[in-house]
């Protein structure tokens, strides 16, 4: 192996090894420490015992705490629920749009596609912020409905789980539409004509041909919505209520508000095994299937 080849391999390998992989070992090690009031706010791994011998301080206390306290279990479960429901709604809203764009003639197709991508290039935070103005007690929706006489008193939408669903669907909708669009444009029009020729009505053709063939696009799009949604912090923090439990938010509060770094680390490690690992496994299965 030439030195040049080694160098080319080494650059990405070292960068990611140090700044992506190594942090997880640090994370794991601090999750075994104890919170103290100091800088940094956790106990060191090695310490001199009073008799002068070196001892390793590591305990599973943080993990026991996580599994005993219902708050954390509920936060994990509720994160999964919120991410799942949002993904389903994003699919229901995104599929017709992707389908329509895929079947549209040029230049309409390019324009619509650009309109789907455009919000993505503007700030994510500001798009969430836009919904704050929309959902507030005297926000755009309530004001409009009240001036139309549909409702007498403002609806409470801000600081609810509903607002979180809306926020997630809204910010991640382009991620659902784009893979679906990519899949649906590859759909051979002759297959639809063949189904129609064999006596299938448009609705039957959709359910027997289009939908099954777009399954890879559905899976890809759903992954792209579900994965960021499950660890989401900003959306529940801005739109959710105090009882909207999401694990990303719990971790954040544990770190910034309680300044309990070891527990925050333990939350992250559990999340890694319960949430990230299954997703990575699923993705690798999916990739292998696509390769075949």
């Amino acid at each position: 192996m030439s030195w040049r080849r080694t160098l080319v391999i080494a650059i990405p390998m070292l960068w990611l090894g140090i700044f992506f992989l190594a942090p997880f070992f640090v994370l794991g090690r601090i999750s075994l420490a104890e919170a103290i009031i100091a800088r940094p706010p956790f106990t060191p791994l090695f310490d001199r015992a009073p008799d002068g011998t070196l001892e390793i301080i590591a305990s599973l206390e943080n993990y026991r705490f996580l599994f005993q306290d219902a708050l954390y279990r509920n936060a994990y479960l509720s994160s999964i629920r919120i991410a799942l429901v949002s993904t389903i709604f994003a699919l229901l809203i995104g599929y017709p749009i992707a389908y329509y764009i895929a079947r549209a003639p040029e230049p309409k197709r390019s324009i619509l596609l650009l309109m789907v991508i455009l919000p993505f290039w503007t700030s994510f935070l500001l798009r969430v912020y836009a919904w704050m103005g929309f959902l507030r007690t005297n926000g755009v929706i309530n004001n409009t409905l009240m001036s139309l006489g549909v409702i007498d008193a403002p609806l409470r939408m801000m600081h609810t789980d509903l607002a979180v669903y809306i926020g997630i669907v809204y910010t991640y909708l382009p991620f659902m539409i784009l893979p679906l669009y990519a899949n649906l444009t590859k759909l051979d029009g002759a297959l639809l004509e063949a189904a129609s020729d064999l006596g299938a009505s448009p609705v039957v053709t959709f359910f027997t041909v289009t939908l099954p063939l777009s399954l890879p696009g559905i899976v890809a799009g759903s992954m792209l919505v579900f994965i960021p949604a499950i660890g989401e912090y900003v959306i529940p923090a801005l739109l959710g209520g105090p009882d909207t439990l999401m694990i990303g938010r719990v971790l954040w509060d544990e770190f910034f508000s309680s300044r309990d770094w070891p527990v925050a680390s333990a939350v992250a490690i559990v999340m890694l095994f319960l949430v990230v690992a299954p997703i990575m496994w699923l993705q690798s299965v999916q990739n292998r299937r696509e390769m075949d």
Partner: protein
Amino acid sequence: MRGWFLPMAVALGFIFLYAPIVSLVVFSFNESRLVTVWGGFSTKWYGELLRDRQILGSAWISLQVAFWSANLAVIVGTLGAFVLTRFGSFAGRLLLTGMITAPLVMPEVITGLSLLLLFVSMELTLGWPAGRGLTTIIIAHTTFCAAFVAVIAQSRLRQMDESLEEAARDLGAGPVRVFFDITLPVIASALVAGWLLAFTLSLDDLVIASFVSGPGASTLPMVIFSKVRLGVSPDVNALATIIIGFVLIAVLIAGWLMRRAARKPL
């Protein structure tokens, strides 16, 4: 899916996508401090925004971070993608594949927290990086943006006709020459797309930056977040309008350039 259902669903979908943005822009020109009640046309919030030293300072920090992160991410990501698509098998290949794809599915809170803990531990044992600020944010952003660049570069490298590179080797170019003469120009458009994506992602990130930044190095999203946490405020609307304006102009220019390139005969 014929008839009225589909166009209607699409129209509603686009209203859903654009209504909040439109109202954001409209109310940035509102006289009243109440963001959602119209009190007459005014541009005073833009004036207020331009006098806000904190926002301007953080915007400058964000732009620097995004610029350097995008540059570094393109280098790391492209090399990673090139190694994975062209080097066949080597020790650690599986590890590199994992490290390049994992950041894409990693929740931001985990990436942010684990990087912060790394920086703290490195400071304790190595003395570097001393404190946290621009450098640590750039490192963190480079790491997760490199994964996105790598995905784009990898798909372009896979599509690319490898016989182009073989032809260059056959005509006497060494591997380094081939990379700079053939591979890089062919995948250049993908790298530009990757750079832009990395730049946007970095500019957009709040969570990771919040973890790894230090005092005096607040990025624009961090400042906005602390403002909007307390409720809606019209100068944020003005800021949003300016950002949307920038994006629109950039997209229009890009579209115009692409149309011109498409018309030019090869």
